[in-house]
């Protein structure tokens, strides 16, 4: 491909940022032109490379710095290549003296990792069959201290009692005997529906009288003792969250 042809492909402004760096750009040019990486025509490649830089529009030294270093390196190589060859020596040795050797090695190295990056990308996007771990977002929830102390619960309960005493005027007759086992079942069911847990006071939302409140409270203590539920308080005097004791 001639420079003109490359330039005509560049009707738009080249976005250098789409290349990960000068080596990436060079590799692109080599592949575009189907060149042998071991025998790069330095003169034409460095011209193309420079055309790209010129076509890239705004001249941001910050972004261009690395590209310019490569440009000067290429120009230096070009001039070395133009120098008359030294008298023929051993063939092997003359190969070692090829000024392009360092560049070839760099390009090969870079290409290797570029392939590896592509592989990683395919893995991430699931193009390669892969395993998935459990999503770990939950592990980064704020640390919560286990607060199964009953004193804390008693305090909350006392507050509740005070609330009930205020509304003593309306007295509902208990609907028969309240069974603690039933209440345990009731709490479990409530919590099953809310794996994220419930605020302690909300457990008592449907309670109609003191007797029932007491039964519910005793049931809760029993569930705590059996370690079927847990009570968690994020901070002292904060809300107590009651939840089923399963780990998710």
């Amino acid at each position, binding site marked *: 491909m001639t420079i003109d042809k490359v330039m005509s492909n560049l009707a738009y402004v080249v976005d250098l940022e789409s290349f*990960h760096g000068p*080596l990436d750009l060079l590799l692109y040019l080599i592949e575009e032109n189907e060149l042998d990486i071991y025998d790069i025509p330095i003169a034409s490649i460095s011209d193309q490379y420079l055309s790209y830089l010129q076509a890239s529009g705004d001249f941001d030294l910050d972004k261009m710095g690395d590209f310019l270093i490569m440009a000067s390196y290429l120009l230096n190589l070009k001039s070395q290549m133009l120098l008359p060859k030294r008298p023929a020596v051993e063939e092997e040795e003359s190969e070692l003296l090829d000024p392009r050797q360092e560049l070839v090695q760099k390009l090969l190295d870079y290409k290797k*990792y570029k*392939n*590896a*990056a592509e592989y990683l*990308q395919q893995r*991430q996007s*699931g193009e390669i069959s892969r*395993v998935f771990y459990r999503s770990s977002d939950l592990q980064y929830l704020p640390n919560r201290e286990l607060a199964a102390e009953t004193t804390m619960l008693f305090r909350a309960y006392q507050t509740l009692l005070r609330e009930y005493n205020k509304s003593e005027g309306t007295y509902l007759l208990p609907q028969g005997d309240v069974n603690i086992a039933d209440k345990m079942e009731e709490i479990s069911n409530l919590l099953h529906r809310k794996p994220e847990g419930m605020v302690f006071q909300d457990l008592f939302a449907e309670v109609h009288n003191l007797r029932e409140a007491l039964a519910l409270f005793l049931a809760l203590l029993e569930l705590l003792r059996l370690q079927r539920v847990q009570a968690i308080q994020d901070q002292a005097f904060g809300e107590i969250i009651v939840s089923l004791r399963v780990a998710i």
Partner: protein
Amino acid sequence: MLMREEVMGAVEAILFVRAEQVGIDELVEILDIPLLELRVLMREMLSDYNQNKNRGVQILEVDGFYLMCTNPAYSDILTRMEKPGRKRLSPAALDTLAIIAYRQPVTRAEIEQVRGVKADRIINNLLEKGLILELGFKPVVGKPVTYGTSEEFLRVFGLTSLKELPAIMEET
């Protein structure tokens, strides 16, 4: 003392909750059971667990560490499910990550040499994302920090160990 079945159940629960590799030593400690006994049990458990090719979850053993993860057979479905909000890594970040993965422990200067550009910003970004870690210092002048990949790296790319990375060949 736990029964055989209970030990297996407990191991399952532990691996499930931890969501990362758990060493056999740690299992011994948590379960309070002799190492040799646990080893035998784990062998049985893994073969039971992974026997059914259609199971969604499997338990792998990698160098004395156990890991619960999905069956690769379902990677299609799970990729489809992945939340679209999941941020993809930029090509430049992937390049850098590839170099770190294959050459760890590797210093910033070594990375920059391969890529031909500065890597400060990208390395900091990868550190923030928890995909790489500072491993230590290279014993040369200036003691530069060396970097390597993290557990999170394995998790994001669905690898069970670094050994799973394919050999990269020198292409022409």
